[in-house]
């Protein structure tokens, strides 16, 4: 019977079709960003003339009114603290939830989970007024605080589940060795849980980097705007330069992808497998 090879063929064809369909939009944007407008006016897949150029990238970066280079820097200024702060705080909280018992533990955890379901759009008005009262509107610190607060619940949930999967024996060995819980957390649990922590960090990075809504609501000085806010401003009033927009989009999109690629090896699960020999 020819079931084996035929099945293989069908699976591969489907997989390739899905893969190609998935990647199409990115190819399209990339093509739009490097080809002059007159070449793609009938569609970027038309290849009669092909003179790629990166001029749109420079145009976007050094745009006279809304330069993307400043947007990118601002994004980094916001993202890096907004990843580190919630990661550390949430990791500590997650460890407490995973390993200790205290009276209101379960209620606290469930409340936290429950509150995560409230969307940004509902929270924004009270947040806006809260920042206004604290004089943190339109400041880096304000936006960083909001992103950090937003990140803490989900990272706590994520890491708590991860921590419960770590064998307690490592921590017990450390207890017998005389370590305090603080030492156990920083010297044993944190390093061993690195794959989980890096996963959470990368996700949080991408989330904050790609955020448009909070930035839009809480930052209005063009000098402080983040990259996602600058992009729509590159739209002209009378004429949309698709090449410019695409170039800007590609630059903004690439950053989280590169972060993921760079930290890829920390996802390797090999680590915990060796703490416990099966």
């Amino acid at each position: 019977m020819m079931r084996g090879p035929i099945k293989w063929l069908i699976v591969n064809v489907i997989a390739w079709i899905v893969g190609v369909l998935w990647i199409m939009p990115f190819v399209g944007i990339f093509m739009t960003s490097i080809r002059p407008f007159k070449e793609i006016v009938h569609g970027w897949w038309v290849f009669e003339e092909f003179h790629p150029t990166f001029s749109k990238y420079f145009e976007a970066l050094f745009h006279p009114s809304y330069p993307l280079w400043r947007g990118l820097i601002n994004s980094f200024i916001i993202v890096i603290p907004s990843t580190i702060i919630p990661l550390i705080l949430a990791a500590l909280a997650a460890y407490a939830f995973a390993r200790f018992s205290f009276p209101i533990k379960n209620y606290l955890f469930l409340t936290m989970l429950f509150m995560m379901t409230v969307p940004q759009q509902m929270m924004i008005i009270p947040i806006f007024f809260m920042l206004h009262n604290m004089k943190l509107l339109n400041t880096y610190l304000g936006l960083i605080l909001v992103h950090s607060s937003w990140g803490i619940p989900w990272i706590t949930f994520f890491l708590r589940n991860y921590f419960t999967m770590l064998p307690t024996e490592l921590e017990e060995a450390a207890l017998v060795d005389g370590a305090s819980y603080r030492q156990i957390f920083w010297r044993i649990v944190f390093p061993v849980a690195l794959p989980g922590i890096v996963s959470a960090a990368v996700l949080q990075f991408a989330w904050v980097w790609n955020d448009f809504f909070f930035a839009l609501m809480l930052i209005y000085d063009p000098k402080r705007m983040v990259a996602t806010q600058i992009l729509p401003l590159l739209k002209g009033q009378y004429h949309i330069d698709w090449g410019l927009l695409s170039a800007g989009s590609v630059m903004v999109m690439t950053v989280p992808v590169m972060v993921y690629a760079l930290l890829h090896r920390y996802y390797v699960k090999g680590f915990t497998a060796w703490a416990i020999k099966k």
Partner: protein
Amino acid sequence: MLVSVVLENIRKIFPPNVVALDNISLEIGSSEFFVTLGPSGSGKTTLLRIIAGLERPTKGRVIIGDKVVVDAEKRIFVEPGERNIGMVFQNWALYPHMSVYDNIAFPLRIKKLPKQEIDRRVKEVAEALGIRELLNRKPSQISGGQQQRVAVARALVKQPDVLLLDEPFSNLDARIRVTAREFVREIQKTLGITTILVTHDQADAFAVGDRIMVLRDGEIQQVGTARQLYDEPVNLFVANFIGNPPMNIIKLIPAHPVIKALNLEDIVPKDDSLVYLGIRPDEAIATVEIDNAHIVGKTRIIEYVGARKYVKVEVEHGFSIKVLAGENVTENQKVGVLVRKVHVFNSKGARIESIVY
């Protein structure tokens, strides 16, 4: 320091009402190699963890040396790190992200000893355990036997008063197990450190223990030397658990002809409905001479164990026993079984007497 370990009336209940340990009292002498032996669920690991401080007893107290480290009623609890104990976990629990050197140095670094002292001690212990060349490797890069030695090194480097071992040999293959047992026993004798080892394998217990305690469902069955447990088991459970191949246990009524054949009529209690006879496979032999035998039967399967042969004999009274196979004994042959030693147990499983022929 040479310390003793005393347990007084230790009781551990896991909510809602699982009794893991019921009234365990015991005294372990200084420099003694004490083994707690029992099947899964017997409470042996729980007991070890209570001594270590990783678990709190519901009732009772533990005294290490002259210090009360835990007292459930008086609410005294000394942290595991303050009890001056070293522990080797079943899966060794080596810190995977640190080198072997750092793993062993860890307890000393926590104690904030000076760098040179730490270096000296780590190298000394590593040398003593034969792992000096491995100091720069990570746990994932060394073999199981070597990992175990690193775990032992880490436990010993702080020169603890008591060494605790939780099933340290279960993860090793058979060959390495034998060398590991010898190795642990030698270290213990050299250092003279009071040691408590937990295992479910009676061969391990016999190989290393000065005294062995058999636990079942949280209750002490018997405490004694290996010889005492083997020759004078206090009940059916201990008799069956100790010894390989396991003891043949035969359930009979007191008036059974086999009892007469073995001259046990006076020993067997008359008012009991049942009696159990225990015959170890190594303490009875099947021979082709039927005339002098105590029991007659037919052989079934012969088991060849290298140095000896065992054979399963179907006795004419309706039960089978495994015994040594004598010369010229083959399968499906009529044989006579000569019993060398038999243990008599009453209907409740307690041993009454053991007879040697």
